[in-house]
């Protein structure tokens, strides 16, 4: 009887303990799950409790296989080696180098930054950085650089990270402004996504 009372009282105890939030109990639950996903894989994470004979587990594993080692599911189906052979006929002069950068996001980023001189454009790493962009029209002199990192081969909305760093001129010296540009970075990301989407649609229609 005592055993049953103990078990039945577990639920309110857990809710009570976890409701405190951010504490010893429950505070790192989601973070811990994510770390275990990295170790065991999402489907085989023992704390996610998939029944290994269930349909959900089977579908999960098939998705995992489809995603490959990088965990990203390519949207386009392709047979390994066949495309290369058809396009290159085995010529070593036409070797195809694969990239981990989505081409639409890359093109969209280049398009958005087309008005500005680029300091770095690393298409393999998916990294773009402008030269200093000067704005002398306000009372204070300001200059900014834009950094864009494309971190996925998938055409997904969270595959672009933008960062804006600005400096102001004080006593002939450029000092980091310390401002954050969250909204501007967000709008810049959306502009890149919009431009990328146009490239994608053009490609689909061609």
């Amino acid at each position, binding site marked *: 009887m005592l055993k049953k009372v103990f*078990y039945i009282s577990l*639920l309110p105890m*857990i*809710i009570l*303990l*976890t409701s405190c*939030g951010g504490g*010893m*109990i*429950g*505070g*790192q*639950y*989601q*973070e*811990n*799950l994510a*770390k*275990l996903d990295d*170790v*065991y894989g999402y489907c085989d994470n*023992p*704390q996610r*409790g998939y*029944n290994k004979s*269930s*349909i*959900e587990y*089977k*579908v999960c*594993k*098939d*998705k995992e*296989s*489809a995603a*490959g*080692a*990088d965990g*990203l*599911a*390519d949207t*386009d*189906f392709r047979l*390994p080696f066949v495309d290369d052979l058809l396009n290159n006929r085995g010529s070593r002069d036409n070797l195809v180098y694969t990239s*981990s950068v989505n081409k639409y996001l890359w093109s969209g980023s280049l398009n*958005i930054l087309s*008005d500005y001189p680029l300091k770095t454009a690393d298409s393999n790493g998916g990294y773009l950085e402008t030269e200093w*962009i*000067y*704005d002398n029209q306000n009372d204070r002199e*300001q200059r*900014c650089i*834009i950094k864009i990192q494309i971190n996925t*081969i998938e055409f997904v909305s969270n595959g672009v990270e933008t960062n804006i760093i600005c400096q102001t001129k004080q006593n002939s010296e450029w000092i980091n402004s310390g401002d954050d540009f969250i909204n*501007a970075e967000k*709008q810049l990301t*959306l*502009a890149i996504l*919009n431009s990328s*989407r146009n490239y994608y649609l053009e490609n689909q229609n061609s």
Partner: protein
Amino acid sequence: MKKLFIMVSALSAAVFSSAKADISASGSYGAHAISGGDVIGGDAATTTGTLFMNGGGLSFAMSTTTAGGMTVSAGAGVSLDSNDSDSTKGVTGLANVTFAADGFSFQVGDVDLVGDGTGHVGNVASDVVDNGGYTATGIATGVSDTEGYGFVASTSVGGASVSFAYLLDKANSAVNNAETSSGDYASGVSVSMPMGDLTVGLGYATTTNPGSGSANEVSTGISVAYPLGGTSLKLGYESTDESVDSTTASAAISGSLDADTTWAIGYTDGEAGTSASTRSEAKLTRSLGGGVSVYAEIQNTSGTGSSGTNMAVGTTVAF
């Protein structure tokens, strides 16, 4: 600069908007070719030929979130199993519901016992290759009944993840009710925690067997995962006390050849009473994009049971 900000501000924020669905469906399909000894087909006749098999599943997930942030979810599915040669179309799910928030998860209904099988890390191949027919009967750790009506509570304690399960009735699975006086109880605890670069898993599961007259079953297991030069190494040990006591020791290593190709090798050594077997497995999977992947698996068994090599190749498609 200002020009750029003005320009981007004018753009719609709905470019890549995604709706959050309360009910979602996903599925997968598989087609396989298996060879080995007496392949396990739906045909009752024993055959040493190659077995061709296919099937698929459709999984539904339902969820909603309360104003306080708690997510309530349930799921169901239909399938024609592509992992074994049972041609019966199955309908599963809807037998449990999960309440989850940032700090915990609570599942009640027909649930799986946690803590059982923690030390089994050598099974890197899918169930498909088992249909090749060669078997290792000396590998038999784990409690007999691992599903029943009850609950699973999960949370974290510092850096450790902890799950606890209590089954009111482990004798009947896939049911939507149980009596407190069933007598067929089971409970289990699973703990996963980082220790430096290691990730350690501990499991404990126990069941009562009042009806059968046999002894209660207790299974304990430990696993250790360690990143090793771009690969992942796992070691495990499991021990079960039951009518025929058993132990297994296992190891697995996995890695990738490129962004789309993964490999895994596993080894299991087991003893169950006077039986002793070993099983080695290897799997190579290549993603082709569009949800399609192809794989090749090989499984070698020796010792008690039937010794030999099962092989499987095939494709799976995730929708």
